[in-house]
């Protein structure tokens, strides 16, 4: 009796304690919730407008040149700039330059190797230092210096020299005429006045404080802090040389789990969600968010390995490849698994209508036609096991892709549909660091172990340039980093690809691409599954937000929050 009473007492004390703590916390959040609502209402007493964005991956670095992560690139529209940026139609417009260099305005030389850029004279860094041609030269020097651990040196390693006849002019001379310059140059500028002294002192800028904490920038926002694992914060740059931004602060929260991101968006804890899965779109729309889909040149493709020595003999025959294309109901997959939101891409240059002209159309879903083609090619089911064969070889193909739910679902459907026409598809889901490992690391895709590879890719958008199918890129012991994992050496294709990258004249280049497009169609080297655009979920309070497939948040200074 006595101890039971005591036990109850202990329970009561704990419960009361618990209530007190939660009441305090609740009070704390309530007090803080009020200003939160007020920040969304610009008319309330002097409260800041704060936009919260959710990123499902944390950036690895915030410095230009040092990272290829999409999430890092978005920050260069916040506290940095590209020389020219791209709008929601992915058309270029000048940003740091006065006009986009072209042959007409003398920006591009006759032989196509020299690009002359005229910079605006009013651009400056947030510490009032003017941004001049010297910063461009410095950026190039850092990109090509072997002492720097930059993510990529492309295309700066193709440049012979960058000079500045005066502080507002930058002259870039390439070794060879370089057609893809518009899409690939000047993705963010490094501040020479801060980093050059460090480079001269240490021989590298890898350890510079600015790389991790780029507090000096030239964009509409300034970087303030990045708390690893939690968030990053940007505030409006009061010293901005352009039109000041409307929103006072940008918060970026890192939420790795898709389901958690959706929950947070539905609960109204954020204004923007990134990389939304199609399956979440209906639920988010119901919760009042706007879904914005922005093409970015990427689509999900199946790539065939066509090679006499190491490939499956069936795939050497274009009829078999056509049959595969006709046996899969791609429209059905998009309709059923992807909510009908993207389209099935017919051409690798689907998102660049200029180069996909005349536009290709898809092979129709025609399982009977596929069966006929296979019969014609000599692949018949001689042993009656349901799988076609020829000369004792079964039509069994190895298909591999990385581990993602949508891919696995699609694979299962494809396996079933190909099975109906007598092709056995073996599915191999592989973790992505293993999948994309190189030939030297015994990466299975690089070593040609898969007959059909699948991943999301596109040309070097917004430039149509490609290089995967070059004969010279076939990996081997001598060249283990080769990227032609399809082991395809088609001489005609190879010649065309090499030609287009030198054609600075847009009309000539377009003609080359018409031929390349047609070649891909006739040879069925690739099969398009679905387009893979950027999918954003925009909260109802965030207005004016437009997105580009290249420079994602190009108009972030115009975004606004309304109550």
């Amino acid at each position, binding site marked *: 009796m006595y101890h039971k009473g005591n036990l109850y007492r202990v329970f009561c004390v704990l419960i009361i304690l618990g209530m007190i703590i939660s009441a305090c916390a609740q009070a704390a959040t309530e007090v803080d919730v009020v200003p939160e609502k007020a920040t969304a209402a610009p008319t309330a007493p002097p409260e800041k407008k704060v936009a919260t964005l959710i990123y499902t991956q944390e950036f690895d670095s915030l410095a230009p040149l040092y990272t290829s992560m999409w999430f890092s690139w978005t920050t260069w529209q916040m506290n940095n700039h590209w020389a020219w940026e791209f709008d929601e139609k992915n058309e270029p417009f000048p940003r740091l330059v006065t006009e986009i260099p072209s042959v007409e305005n003398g920006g591009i030389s006759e032989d196509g190797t020299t690009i002359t850029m005229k910079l605006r004279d009013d651009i400056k860094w947030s510490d009032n230092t003017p941004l001049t041609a010297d910063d461009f030269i410095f950026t190039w020097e850092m990109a090509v210096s072997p002492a720097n651990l930059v993510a990529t040196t492309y295309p700066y390693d193709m440049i012979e020299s960058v000079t500045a006849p005066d502080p507002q002019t930058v002259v870039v001379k390439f070794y060879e005429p370089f057609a893809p310059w518009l899409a690939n140059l000047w993705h963010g500028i490094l501040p020479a006045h801060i980093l050059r002294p460090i480079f001269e002192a240490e021989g590298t800028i890898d350890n510079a404080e600015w790389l991790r904490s780029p507090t000096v920038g030239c964009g509409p926002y300034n970087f303030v802090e990045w708390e690893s694992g939690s968030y990053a914060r940007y505030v409006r740059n009061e010293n901005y040389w352009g039109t000041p931004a409307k929103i006072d602060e940008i918060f970026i929260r890192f939420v790795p*789990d*898709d*389901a958690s991101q*959706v929950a947070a968006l539905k609960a109204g804890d954020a204004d923007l969600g990134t990389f939304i*899965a199609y*399956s*979440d779109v*209906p*639920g988010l729309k119901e919760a009042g968010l706007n879904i914005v889909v922005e093409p970015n040149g990427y689509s999900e493709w199946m790539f065939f390995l066509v090679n006499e020595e190491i490939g499956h003999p069936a795939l050497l025959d274009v009829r078999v490849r056509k049959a595969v294309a006709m046996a899969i109901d791609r429209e*059905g*997959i998009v309709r*059923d*698994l992807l909510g009908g939101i993207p389209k099935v891409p017919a051409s690798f240059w689907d998102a660049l209508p200029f180069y996909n002209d005349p536009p290709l159309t898809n092979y129709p879903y025609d399982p009977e036609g596929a069966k006929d083609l296979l019969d014609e090619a000599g692949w018949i089911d001689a042993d009656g096991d349901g799988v076609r064969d020829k000369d004792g070889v079964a039509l069994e193909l190895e298909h591999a892709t990385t*581990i993602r*739910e949508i891919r*696995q*679902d699609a*694979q*299962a*459907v494809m*396996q*079933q549909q190909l099975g109906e026409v007598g092709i056995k598809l*073996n*599915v*191999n*889901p*592989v*973790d992505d*660091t*293993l*999948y994309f490992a190189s030939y030297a690391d015994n990466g*299975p895709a690089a070593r040609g172990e898969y007959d059909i590879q699948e991943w999301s890719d596109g040309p070097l958008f917004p430039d149509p340039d490609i290089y995967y199918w070059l004969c010279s890129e076939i990996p081997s012991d001598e060249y283990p980093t080769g990227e032609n994992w399809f082991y395809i050496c088609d001489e005609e294709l190879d010649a065309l690809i090499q030609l287009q990258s030198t054609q600075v004249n847009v009309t000539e280049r377009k003609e080359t691409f018409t031929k390349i497009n047609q070649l891909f169609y006739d040879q069925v080297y690739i099969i398009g599954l679905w387009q893979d655009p950027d999918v954003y979920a925009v909260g109802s309070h965030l207005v004016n937000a437009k997105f580009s497939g290249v420079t994602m948040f190009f108009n972030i200074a115009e975004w606004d929050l309304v109550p």
Partner: protein
Amino acid sequence: MTETADPIPVASFNQDELETPPLTLGQLTWRRFRRHKMAMFGAVVLILLFLYSFGGALVLSEKYANFADTPLRLSSPSLEHPFGTDTIGRDVLARTIYGGQISLIIGLTAVLIENIIGISIGALAGYYGGKVDALLMRFTEAMLNIPEIFLLIVMAKYFGGKIPEINMLGREFSGSVVVIVVIIGLTSWMYLARIVRAEFLSLKENEFVLAARATGTSNFEIIFRHILPNSIAPIMVAATLGVANAILAEAYISFLGLGVQPPTATWGNMLDGANNYLESAPWLWFFPGLLILLTVLSINFLGDGLRDALDPRSRAA
């Protein structure tokens, strides 16, 4: 009663009529076990679950389980699909049946591997002592010091994708099942090894061991025929609970995306697939989740009952 006039009475009594024959360990355990209501409940449920998974296969074919009827995707439970359909239109009921086979097989075989490794190491360490013991125990400690989930993830990546499909029991399933079984086995033998070693350390000084040695029995026989059967109790309990742990481990690793890969179904990877549909399609996670819960729960009850039944000092009996 046949009583002879023989001057030595004991040997001629008919023992059966005087006392009941001594109970074997098994019978004794069974008696105590029977009284443990929750354990009996657990045992019954487990039997039902096994019937569901393996017997259900006789009713619904595997082809049916893998058949993707995409227009019907994500439909809620109905007469035709009692558990609803999944993201590409496969019948959830059928998938839980076939998934159950895999999950249960994973549980059992992982424990088998775990037991083989754990018993071997524990027995050798406990019996031989000295340097062998020190070395083996250091190794065990080394493995113990790395948290299981870290080891699971690292090993899953190491072995991932390297084993092709296998054909067994008339079913074809992804090689990642073997990978999961191996890595769960490799990461959970340590506790068992310690327990076995402790048992051996205390048992090997007993007289029956001395007697066996005196009669020239080989070490191998002593270990496996004499000492091991006497330490069966903790091994059985650990093995039973190990199955529950293995099934849960499979669910965890599938949630992180590193487990058995679809289209082969397991209860764990069905839960992972349901992650984004918590609200919109609750049948996707409810049924596999319920099945995992029931399985693990009944195994826990069973293990609890076994522990009480086998341990004479416990008050529960």
